[in-house]
């Protein structure tokens, strides 16, 4: 009754793999975008900002469908990637990772952006007067000071990616062992007679993972404050 079955483990491990890959791949893009939004003024900035937040407000099924149109085998980008690099997204776990990455991106970027905005720009100026070129200023001052925010963004993004459902099931369906994450497994189980116990176990796993991530994100945020005060 309380034992997690092999099928459930498969879903849990797949969810973890999908969320870890989605977070790791999204992080460099997230940092770059957070820096751009926090530190630069350019034409179309508010449009870019809105685009980043779009997955947060669009119905997930719409995002999933758009991903299918773009990254599906016949999609513009998907076809190109499949032909040139052999990377296939549709109905693969990689597609689940892509969907999770896109859906969690707004949550991942936000703490990163806030922590970069909170850094005193005069520290970056001081670094320049000491001979640091802009990219060195970024890696020796901006990024280390923003690190707790970067980690908080990764944790939040990871938590969102683990729970993602709508866009993933639309884009890559619900194939056990390939694209069936915790969420889609729960969805299948509650439509199956006698699936309640298994669904309940996965629900508890979800809650534990989400709570753990929120607590970790909060802890990183507090570390960030301490770090900025130089204690």
């Amino acid at each position, binding site marked *: 009754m309380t034992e997690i079955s092999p099928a459930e483990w498969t879903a849990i491990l797949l969810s973890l793999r999908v969320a870890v890959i989605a977070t790791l791949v999204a992080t460099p893009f997230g940092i770059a975008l957070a820096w751009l939004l926090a530190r630069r003024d350019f034409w179309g900035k508010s449009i870019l900002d809105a685009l980043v937040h779009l997955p947060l407000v669009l119905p997930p099924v719409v995002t999933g469908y758009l991903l299918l149109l773009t990254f599906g085998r016949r999609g513009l980008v998907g076809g190109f990637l499949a032909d040139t690099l052999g990377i296939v997204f549709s109905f693969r776990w990689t597609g689940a990772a892509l969907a999770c990455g896109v859906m969690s991106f707004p949550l991942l970027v936000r703490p990163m952006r806030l922590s970069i905005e909170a850094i005193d720009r005069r*520290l970056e*100026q001081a670094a320049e007067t*000491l*001979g640091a070129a802009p990219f060195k*200023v970024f890696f*020796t*001052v901006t990024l280390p000071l923003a690190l707790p925010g970067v980690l908080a963004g990764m944790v939040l993004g990871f938590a969102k990616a683990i729970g993602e459902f709508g866009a993933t099931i639309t884009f890559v369906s619900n194939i056990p062992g390939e694209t069936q994450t915790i969420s889609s497994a729960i969805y299948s189980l509650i439509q199956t007679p006698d699936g309640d116990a298994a669904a309940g176990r996965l629900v508890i796993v979800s809650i534990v993972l989400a709570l753990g991530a929120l607590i970790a994100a909060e802890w990183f945020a507090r570390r960030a404050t301490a770090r900025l005060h*130089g204690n």
Partner: protein
Amino acid sequence: MLRVDVEKQLGEFSLAASFTSEGRVTGLFGASGAGKTSLVNMIAGLLRPDRGTIVIDGDVLDDSAAGIHVPTWRRRIGYVFQDARLFPHLNVAQNLDYGRRMNGLAADPAQYKRIVDLLDIGALQDRRPGKLSGGERQRVALGRALLSRPRLLLLDEPLGALDEGRKLEILPYLVRLRDEANVPMVYVSHDVAELRQLATQIVMLKQGRVVSFGGVKVLT
């Protein structure tokens, strides 16, 4: 030798300053709002003049007519800010070593020890800036700027954020620096007494214009 001839419009405020200085310590004197910090920021390259030139020892750093604006990080001009601006994520030793690392200079333990001794900051090496007093922070900031081996040191009211007692604590270090560090300085202050003790030449600034220039006696 430092030659400055610049114009800059900052909102309502217009700055047009021109002076040449060969002094060891050029005192930039004026009330707050006279444009002292803007002028120093232009020398540092943090602010780009609308028009004019800035030349150090024949090396052109700014020349608006020729489209020259050497970026701050290539100027090798040290800057001590009023608010120290130590890096909060680095300890004192790492702060001191930052300029040397960024400029890719070889370690020079003798020079490091000399400056650390000169400023009495040897005992602070492992501390974070958050655990330093205002006076200690300012001494570390001085050391950090000097150890980047600048050809000119800018000091923008380095005692401005300190109370009277702390000022008296730091002032002797600045005098020692002037006499022993062998780096020309531009020292910004609105305090006559401070400049009398430190400066060898005075540039007096009023509402964005140089109103007098000469020896320390122009302060009277």
